[in-house]
């Protein structure tokens, strides 16, 4: 068994070992998600979010955003977690995207060909000047969680898609390497041994 297989096996074992916390959550009878939502997204908005999440993190040799439940996560954050002002930025962004689609092609965003959808999304990418890497990294590290605040639609969308994906069970265990109890620290461990990031 090579190291990758060992880790995979360990992950499976540990997955079993941590199940008591799952059962505790079930026993507690708490379903915080059942709190009344501020409102549901329209069916149209839900479909646009699905398309966008899939564009940002598609299925490759691992499952993509759709299978990982990212659209539902985005809906939860936008409708229940975002403030009214943040929600407005997000929903206005969706609406503007759809409006551009209709004015350019007389079709709704979800009816476009994937290449056209990607083209519209790419147009929202902020133009980045020559970056001072350290300052940029610090800004990135300290960006508000969930892209809260005045951050524009595109960055909110991307942040929520990425967060929803890499913290999902699929993202954490299939795209990344999930090893909740490593058992040791190796400061000289070589990336080639796993070839991807640890789940953090």
């Amino acid at each position, binding site marked *: 068994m090579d190291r990758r297989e060992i880790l995979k096996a360990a992950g499976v074992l540990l997955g079993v070992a941590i199940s008591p916390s799952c059962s505790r*959550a079930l026993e507690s009878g708490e379903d915080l998600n059942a709190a009344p939502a501020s409102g549901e997204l329209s069916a149209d908005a839900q479909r646009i979010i699905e398309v966008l999440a899939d564009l940002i*993190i598609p299925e490759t040799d691992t499952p993509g955003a759709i299978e990982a439940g990212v659209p539902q996560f985005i809906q939860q954050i936008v409708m229940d977690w975002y403030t009214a002002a943040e929600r407005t930025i997000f929903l206005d962004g969706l609406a503007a995207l759809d409006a551009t689609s209709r004015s350019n092609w007389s079709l709704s965003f979800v009816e476009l060909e994937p290449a056209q959808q*990607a083209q519209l999304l790419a147009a929202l990418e902020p133009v980045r000047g020559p970056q001072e890497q350290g300052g940029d990294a610090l800004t990135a590290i300290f960006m508000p969680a969930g892209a809260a605040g005045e951050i524009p639609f595109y960055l909110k969308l991307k942040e929520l898609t990425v*967060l929803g994906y890499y913290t999902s069970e699929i993202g954490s265990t299939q795209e990344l390497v999930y090893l909740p*109890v490593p*058992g040791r*620290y*190796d400061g*000289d461990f070589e990336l080639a041994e796993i070839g991807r990031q640890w789940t953090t």
Partner: protein
Amino acid sequence: MDNYDFDAIVVGSGISGGWAAKELCEKGLKTLVLERGRPLEHGAGYTGEHQPTWETEVRGLPLRDLYNDEYEIQSTSYAFNETTRHFWNNDSNNPYDWDPQHPWHWVRADVVGGRSLLWARQVYRWSDLDFAANKLDGHGCDWPIRYADIAPWYSHVEKFIGVSGQKLGLAQLPDGEFLKPMELNVLERHVAARIAEEFPERVMTIGRVAILTEPLPHSDRGTCHYCGPCHRGCSVGAYFSSLSSTLPAATATGNMTLRANAVVEGLDYEAGRITGVRVIDTETRERQTYTSKVVFLCASTVGSTQILLNSASDAFPNGLANTSGALGRYLMDHTYAVGAMGVFPGFEKYYPMGARPNGAYIPRYQNLEGGDEAGFYRGYGFQGGAARMNWQTMARLTPGFGAEFKNSLRTPGPWTMRLGGFGECLPYEDNYLDLHPTKKDRFGIPQARFRFTWHDNEIRLRDASKADAARMLRAAGAVSVTEYDAQAPGGAAIHEMGTARMGRDPADSVLNAFNQAHDVANLFVTDGSAMTSSACVNPSITYMALTARAVDYATTQMSEGAI
């Protein structure tokens, strides 16, 4: 027991209270431990331990409405989230006089074990550079002890709790009884070597932490498995907490009675002695007074000071044991959340395995002879570490989307290293806490109020630490370096101390050389409030050592009939 309910009462079950309980019980004293927080069981109470993010509420994002309404101060801590919230104080249930005009963060737990569950576990001995500092430069009153007085007690504590670290032979940071050190990673070792070349008087080492890297002979606590977030609780007990370590030892003697949900309102004083500890049950509001031969206040700096201030009487109109007027004054914390971060090219082959709950440490190197040669009095050390940027940071830095974007996030980003300065704060009379004249909590206890500002010396020292951090990172090969200063308010480092200080003279201090109140023979205060100066290192181990030493003294005095 001569009409006493107990031989000893300990107020608080955190780092200091746990130690007082263990030492008193092991010396055969029937001991009552009072804890204002909720009961918490070691292991079973750690409901967030190893919980994967996908099982947490909103994937680890803060519950903003709840935190704003009920955890406004506590939620500012890095260790506060849904995996730990059940350990913390609810600010609306147990408020203090939070005043944005006079910002002070009182960060505290609300369970048995107190902040020993949540602490950052860094332990550094003080040296004579610290104990002699006040006398040498004239800020604050002289410590009534020196390193030689406390050294054996540091050893006593370290052997029991388990401290991993590297011996360095530095006078300003004495070595201790160490378990094998954790390791620096590949970039940290490179930076350490470059710093040693460029700045021969500076050393970078692995942090000294109260975490087991090998088993302890006297204990069945497990060794660290490098899962990372210790503050969620560790059911194998790899890091020191009251729950994993001192309280079980106290329980094993059969001498301890632990009562949770019991907030102490005040102490009764009569004819030179504490004659009662007045308690309110936080659930039933029932009041009760307990008596004992000796009382140890270990309720934290603010908690113990608040109790003494709220125990004023005709004999002590300004607060119990406060003939000196020092009670509540000389409040200190460390300068915090200031430093620099750099990005390092190279080393892409390496990607550390395991979440090491510890970092790198650079001990103080300024003003090692005392004085203010460096442009300020006292000094600072650095805590930091190197890691590769993770998917979250890289996603924010990587333009575009789609398969290429996803695949680029599969591997970690460049290495970064951060160095954060922790600077000493001088004791100032005008930095203080007192009782708010009208605001009370739900038990009718006056709320603590804070007046604290960073003075010029702390600002100079903080700026110098920031510049030094940047200089060291550049010298070590960082391609771009950013300085940061979050302007953390007092209390944010959670190293608050000094408001019932030890001293030689009853005219300017509350406690003597053995943490005994100058004014009251059977009253001892052994938490952070006893500290006469703040040094620049994490203070908890000094509270533990002072506590064990004070118990030894108190029990000797009791057996000789002096208490």
